[in-house]
């Protein structure tokens, strides 16, 4: 019975650890222009997506989270036409019209499907190790088997870049990977935005 409990507990702990370590958004690469010392007075958010729905969701989430921290932010879909894709100059003209000095561009790069598994391992754990010195040598050992733990996951890679409107040059950019098992990519917008905004705050790129 005791052996069974140890087995179940070990499998549960390892499974939980694997899932917890793989889910969520992590920044796999980050670059910052050390020469930039400014603070944005108004931020223009662009979600680069072929589909209008996800674009508005991403932009709205960035606007919501950045505004909550006291930043002045505007979503691009509220001022740019929905039907046709505007060119770079048209976007910059609109950015200047609304008085934004920093542009955030969120770009979807790729989605991958992966799987992770931990092979079977067996550990022989001595019984009565701490009860008497002789049990160490002559004691009975218990095999604790850890079963194959495997699961599939989706991983979405995004690139987020901050541009300075005046110079049109990048001032910060990051590659992020968001992994999840269920719920679809739309449900990951909020945790993804939280991770990006948290980093922007840490790097003092926004308030």
């Amino acid at each position, binding site marked *: 019975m005791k052996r069974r409990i140890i087995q179940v507990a070990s499998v549960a702990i390892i499974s939980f650890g694997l899932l917890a370590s793989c889910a969520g958004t992590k920044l796999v690469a980050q*670059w910052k222009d050390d020469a930039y010392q400014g603070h944005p007075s108004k931020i223009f958010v662009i979600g680069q997506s072929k589909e209008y729905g996800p674009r508005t969701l991403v932009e709205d989430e960035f606007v919501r989270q950045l505004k909550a921290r006291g930043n002045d932010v505007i979503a691009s879909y509220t001022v740019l036409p929905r039907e046709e894709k505007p060119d770079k100059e048209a976007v910059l003209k609109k950015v200047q019209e609304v008085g934004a000095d920093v542009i955030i561009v969120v770009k979807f790069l790729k989605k991958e499907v992966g799987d992770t598994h931990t*092979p079977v391992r*067996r*550990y022989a754990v001595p019984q009565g190790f701490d009860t008497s010195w002789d049990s160490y*040598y002559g004691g009975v*050992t218990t095999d604790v088997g850890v079963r194959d733990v495997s699961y599939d996951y989706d991983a979405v890679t995004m*690139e987020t870049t901050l541009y300075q409107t005046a110079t049109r040059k990048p001032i910060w*950019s990051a*590659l992020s990977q968001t992994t999840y098992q269920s719920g679809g990519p739309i449900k990951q917008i909020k945790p993804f935005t939280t991770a990006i905004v948290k980093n922007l705050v840490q790097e003092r790129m926004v308030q």
Partner: protein
Amino acid sequence: MVTILLCVLLVCIGCAATQVKQYTFDETYQGGQPKNVLVIAVVRQPTTRRMMESEFAKQFKKKGIDAVESFRALTTDTLVGDAAREGIASAVKEQGIDTVLTVRSAGGRTEERNIPGMTITTGGGMPYASSGAWGGYTTVMASFPEPSAPTTQGYSAEEKFLSLETQLYDVRTEKLIWSALSETRISGPPQEEINAFVSLMFKELFKAKPFR
């Protein structure tokens, strides 16, 4: 003590993710150290390109050499075709560049490794062995099969390697003056290897006689 330090050092060198496979140097070059370098990383992914170019620029500046990253100096975003060549030529002229450093991919390879199953026996008495006690040392060497014997299954693992070619051109003569072909073992996000790769390239570059 010295022996241990040497062993640790050798192990560290052996495990370095990036290794220089070959390098060439123009022995006729008499130009001395570069004064103003344009750094171009031919990398498709913009964040990775910026990370690599900025790290090279930072290292040059540490040596008192001016350096500018291509993403700041070039008007074009692409590094392919005639537009790139014209953009580079224009930046070189405008910024007084005397040397151009380029980094580009030279391919990659995957190596499969088969790790056999293992049974590890842990010696008893290790915690009791005090330093310098010959008895404790013997106890560790003569390991007991009990109490713990973790068993792992055999498995195969893939190791990925990326080759990069780093080249230095003299603007005045438009000639290649230094080149290194390196290979980096990629065990996580490739961007994690950038700083170590750049440090190694600098070490190699400034070994060359005119740059010392």
